[in-house]
């Protein structure tokens, strides 16, 4: 079991530039079922993906793959022709919000947006547009979602993952890889790893992911990785206190971050004295979460949280 994506996921790719093509190819090499792409000026053509199979992904496949993926002019047409049930967006920032809304309008259940640098007001409008609609948005500015050996959507290195029993949710891409790699090495493995992204306005949040992991019978514990800025971690801590039945470990980045400076991610900023790492760590610890002192201790923190539970 897993959450959000699995072997039945039928993926659409929006944005087939060099970057999008490269990572769509990695997903296919991993064994993800990529069924369609959308690109207005290449509609009617097929995108060809060919290479060596990534055997860390879906098991029992030939060493070589060659896939011809049809390209459509619109998302609606792509969905009608291929039954895609998830989409990944690599569209450049000025056009990404429109790409998300197009996917929402086509009622794609899961929209994963990798694009970094979407204007905040565009995302404010996207969130307004999504009210009352059925789609779930993950991201933007995130590494994507992966269920090991079943489905890779996004830009993460596939080989560090291993199917197992821990759910991972994170605002940071590279710190997700740190957590995943430690879980692979200590044998716990992952059910699903979700990057929710580093922007101040995003789709899926910590509580959404904690809820899904709490309800997923295969997930036996969760690692959540937060950072300075906003109050999503504090809200998650409140939710954990009253609802979470499974052990949670965490890491919060930015203990040494200076106030008022944006630390790379658009959302990683301590403003008006709010959103400090210390506040977040205190909130999580008061909810019984084991907070790792350094990212290298995340795997151990998970083991400790399981032991305590």
């Amino acid at each position, binding site marked *: 079991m897993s959450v959000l994506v699995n072997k039945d996921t039928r993926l659409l790719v929006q944005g087939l530039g060099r970057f999008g093509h490269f990572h769509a190819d990695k997903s296919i090499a991993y064994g993800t079922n990529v069924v369609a792409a959308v690109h207005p000026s290449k509609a009617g053509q097929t995108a060809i993906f060919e290479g060596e199979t990534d055997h860390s992904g879906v098991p029992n496949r030939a060493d070589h793959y060659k896939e011809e993926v049809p390209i459509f002019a619109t998302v609606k047409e792509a969905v009608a022709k291929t039954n895609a049930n998830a989409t990944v967006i690599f569209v450049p920032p*000025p056009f990404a919000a429109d790409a998300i809304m197009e996917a929402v309008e086509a009622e794609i259940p899961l929209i994963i947006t990798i694009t970094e640098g979407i*204007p905040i007001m565009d995302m*404010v409008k996207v969130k307004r547009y999504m009210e009352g609609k059925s789609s779930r948005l993950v991201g933007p500015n995130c590494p994507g979602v992966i269920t090991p050996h079943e489905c890779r959507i996004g830009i993460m*290195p596939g080989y560090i993952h291993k199917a197992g029993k821990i759910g991972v949710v994170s605002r940071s891409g590279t710190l997700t890889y740190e957590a995943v790699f430690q879980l692979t090495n200590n044998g716990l493995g992952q059910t699903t790893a979700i990057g929710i992204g580093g922007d101040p306005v995003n789709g899926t949040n910590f509580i959404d992911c904690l809820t899904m992991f709490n309800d997923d019978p295969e997930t036996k514990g969760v690692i959540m990785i937060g950072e300075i800025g906003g109050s999503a971690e504090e809200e998650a801590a409140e939710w954990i206190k009253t609802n979470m039945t499974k052990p949670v470990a965490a890491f919060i*980045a930015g203990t040494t971050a200076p106030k008022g400076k944006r630390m790379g991610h658009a959302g990683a900023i301590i403003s008006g004295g709010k959103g400090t790492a210390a506040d977040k760590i205190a909130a999580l610890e008061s909810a019984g979460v084991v907070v790792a002192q350094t990212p290298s201790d995340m795997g151990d923190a998970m083991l400790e949280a399981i032991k305590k539970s």
Partner: protein
Amino acid sequence: MKIHEFQAKELMKQKGIAVPLGKLATTVEEAVAAVKPLIEASGNKVVVVKSQIHAGGRGKGRFKEYPELGGVNVVLDGLKGGIEAAEAKVKELASKMLGSTLVTIQTGPEGKQVNKLYIEQGIDIAKELYLSIVLDRIQSRNTVMASTEGGTEIEIVAEESPEKILRETIDPAIGLASFQANRLALGLGLSGEALKSGKKFLLTLSNAAAALDTDLVEINPLVVTKQGQVMALDGKMSFDDNALFRHKDIAAMRDISEEDPAEVKAGEYGLNFIKLDGSIGCLVNGAGLAMATMDTIKHVGGEPANFLDVGGGATTENVTAAFKIITEDPNVKGIFVNIFGGIMQCDVIAEGVVTAVKEVGLDVPLVVRLEGTNVKAGRKIIDESGLKVVSAVDMKDGAQKIVELAK
């Protein structure tokens, strides 16, 4: 991106928002020349001389060179002595302020050099209020915050009397609704002419915030004049960097002299760099990992010299530039390269580090931790380079090693 007060007011004026008359001056002569036209146009014999720097707390700030002198000065001399007396006082103030270093609560002890002054008409103030528009991250919408406690820092109001802060969330599909503007204006105690003027001010400003992609608009104080007009006496605006592509006029307002030179240089190479005070230079991929690397250095007893995220699309050239920026900091006693390759490939980083060291030399210890995409190729490049590099198995190990070596 931050801009100066005079630029924020120019933008507000363009949008039809009431601001006092004012003129920018970069020399004493320009400051003096601004006085007469201002007094004549406004009919008010008071002028104000305001330091223009990218930091708040200017009024309460003091100059290093003139400890008695504040960053914002109200010139009353014109009331008795007429225009000439006002000019003489502005001349005296401008010659002291220009080129001197203003220290405020936000500049840090080193302060900031004042190179620009804004000379503004005096205003007969009946009431001082507070107004800001910021993103409410929980609601994913802009929110107007207003308070009767003008002139006071909003954090202090929030702490001491949170009930005095009024809030209205802006629906992006509608904009601030009239009834919301009305509720805010009534809550601020406005009536008569001021109520009308205040509502218009609120509606215009909230539309401008959305149209200009502001990150923050803060007007403190917002004033009601004795004539009943609501006006922005101060104006602070910053913008969403990611939206500047559609605001070329605002992007052109950037004042690089207000920014750290190393940060500006890093920006040219697409690097996220923030200068800090410690001695361990860090070169990392990914914002979260870069922050966590700083935290880990601190955790094992060191102090980070910088935050540096080379980003996912970095080339060998970018990495070389990053390495040079770090080594140019004389405080740096050791460098920690910490890479978990996802999009970023380890061999690209390794290539960049090797190139940089060959170009600029290396006088301090270097610890490298590589993991992730193309890790084997990356390690091979480092091993075969002949450089004196200490390898680390994970990030904590790397942090411990570099802190030890840099002692």
